[in-house]
């Protein structure tokens, strides 16, 4: 089965609100990375975590290797936050598994 389960697959938020994306792992991962694919097709790195939490502006991410999950929280969503968000789990030095993505649509 899938080793990285990302949810939800799609999410609509009104501007100014917030929500969380989640990735569950079926096995212990060394680290997790979150990316956003914007409307121009570029894949932007948001966070890399080997443990704990990181915050950057309106985004905050957490990774718990033992409990096998990672989250990405978005607060005060803006229109430019729209795009597809991916988590990617680092299993070992030579393998990274991407989640299936969350399509976020921020509504005015």
């Amino acid at each position, binding site marked *: 089965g*899938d080793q*990285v389960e990302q949810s939800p697959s799609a999410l609509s938020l009104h501007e100014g609100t917030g929500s969380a994306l989640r990735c569950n792992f079926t096995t212990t991962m060394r*680290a997790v*990375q979150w*990316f956003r*694919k914007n409307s*121009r*097709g*570029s*894949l*932007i*790195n948001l*966070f*890399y*975590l080997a443990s704990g939490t990181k915050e950057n502006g309106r985004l905050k991410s957490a990774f718990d290797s033992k409990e096998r999950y990672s989250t990405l929280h978005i607060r005060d969503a803006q229109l430019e936050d729209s795009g597809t968000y*991916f988590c*990617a789990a680092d299993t070992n*030095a*030579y*393998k*990274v*598994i*991407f*989640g*299936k*993505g969350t399509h976020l649509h921020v509504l005015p």
Partner: protein
Amino acid sequence: GGIITQTPKFLIGQEGQKLTLKCQQNFNHDTMYWYRQDSGKGLRLIYYSITENDLQKGDLSEGYDASREKKSSFSLTVTSAQKNEMAVFLCASSWGTISGNTLYFGEGSRLIVV
């Protein structure tokens, strides 16, 4: 099983020089990637390509060019090497596009700028 081969393993160049790294995969994967790994940091995507002759930017594409000459090969060029360029460059490949897929990585190429 397949393999990803990066050449060279070590690349030494002078500041300002144009330097090229090459990557070959025999998985017959559609998508190939170039990442940069700096000490203590995660992987940062430079470019990826979903098929032959396709190029998509990552968040670190400035200062780099890439070329997907054929399905099995993806090269990365540092257009003007800088001393802070000294990092490990990792090539990866996967079936289809990113969504839900597993990336397989090469062993890395270390760039040293003198």
